[in-house]
């Protein structure tokens, strides 16, 4: 039997890799992907917890997370497209008109 915390550990690794990607990548789309990684880390943990607790609520939450992720993706990508029309770049560090 796989211990629960292996799953949690795996989830946290994926989560942390997502954080790393979000913090370091310049490409907005990859940053976005990194967030998806973080969500997947969370999802892995949730499903595992749900499984080990013999409770379905965690999985329900995962379901919603996926739904929300889809919505986020739609809006996020739309925003990216809208921006790309005005300024043809996908690098977060080039989008810094406002600062200070």
């Amino acid at each position: 039997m796989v211990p629960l915390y292996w799953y949690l550990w795996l989830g946290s690794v994926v989560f942390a890799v997502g954080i790393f990607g979000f913090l370091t990548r310049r490409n907005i789309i990859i940053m976005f992907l990194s967030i998806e990684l973080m969500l997947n880390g969370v999802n892995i943990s949730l499903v595992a917890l749900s499984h080990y607790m013999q409770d379905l609520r965690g999985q329900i939450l995962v379901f919603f997370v996926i739904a929300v992720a889809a919505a986020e993706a739609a809006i996020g990508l739309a925003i990216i497209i809208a921006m790309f029309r005005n300024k043809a770049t996908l690098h977060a560090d080039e989008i810094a008109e406002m600062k200070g």
Partner: protein
Amino acid sequence: MDISTIGPLLPEIIMAASALLVLLFELVIRKKETAGLLSIISVAIVAYYIPQSFGKAFGGMFISDGYSVFFKFIFFINLILTVLLSMRYLVIEKSNHGEYYALIMFSTLGMMIMASAGDLIVLYLGLELMALSTYVLAGFIRHDIRSNEAAIKYFLLGAFSSALLLYGITIIYGLTGTTDISLIGAAVAEKGLSTPLFLSIIFLMVAFGFKIALAPFHMWAPDVYEGAPTSITAFMSVGPKAAGFAAFGRVFLTGFGSLSADWTGILIVLSILTMAVGNIIAIQQSNIKRMLAYSSVAHAGYAVLGIIVGGAEGISAMMNYLFIYGFMNIGAFAVVIMLRSEGFQGEALEDFKGLARTHPLAAAMMLVFMFSLTGIPIPPTAGFIGKFYLFKAVIGAGYIWLAVVAVIFSAISAYFYLRVVMYMYMLEPEGEAVTLSLSPSLGLALLITTIAVIFIGLYPSPLLSFARLAAG
């Protein structure tokens, strides 16, 4: 299904329905302002049903109590005022689309759900509903690069923070086996502090901290507030923030209330940091929207004192503060919007030079809002009442030093609020006089906010009673 089980949800249902209605309506009408009007009417209807909505639904997932109702009123006011601000503004910005009003309504619906959420899953979804609508609104002026930038920043960081929120929810779920906030509270009280629990508390704190823009999770706020359409900045700086507070307060005081001794320390540090950062950087700003953004950061630092204090006193002080803050902040933005006209940004502090000369009434209103925002040492504005109550609660809880710190930052804040007054009153206008784009709706918004700010300043009793009752 028994209708009574969804009774508490009635306002939300009406809200959702009317949002859809507005959306449909948008397709058939040419004059988009009508959609705005419709949204105001629907909010009025929703507000009418609020008093009948008290109760719990879906096994405690949805709670309509005094606490949520109070916040909902903040959201309604926020919505109404924002819509009033927007009507003419959107035309000037060449973004007069009906989706705008629908999105504002959806966003408000999300806030209402957040305020009423008795379950973390509902909370999360309400938050996302609010956030996603707001992301779109922030980027609503598609052709404006700054609006795009605001949307991108808000969106990515918002998504990042909701991932953190989810992680926190996950851990707490793992620890207690539930996502129901009151059950979590019971479980937490029973089991006491453990490191995983603390971990989840911190994750949730960071996530909520992002929503209410606590330093150091505030950094999105100035950029987004500056870039977003001004009406949406006004909207965002009040509604989502208040919703964040609502959720923050509910989760931390109901869910983690028994451990408050453990997490208030962190919150105090964050609150001081927030006040410091908000006020000190605001002094540096020359763009008034950005300055107000920092000021809004600082105000979050004050309001969070209410959560630190906790209890009915702290909560009612916080709610009271947010209520008042809504009026004065939107009022200030309304003046900024008034200066925006075709081909003229009106956002720079320089643009306010000599306003008292060219538009005395506008200047006088701005003066009232600025003094009210300064708050503490300046009665008799609503801002004073808000801060007074807050600091009274803080001192009552024994944190005299914290009140002193807050009050000092409040004095520092006077510096930049006063600078606006100084520009308006003490400097002479340069070049051509600013033309005001005053529409009846904007005028109405200004009138409401000004009167509210002064009235609450002079006769705060009804509001105080309401807040106290709501915090109950």
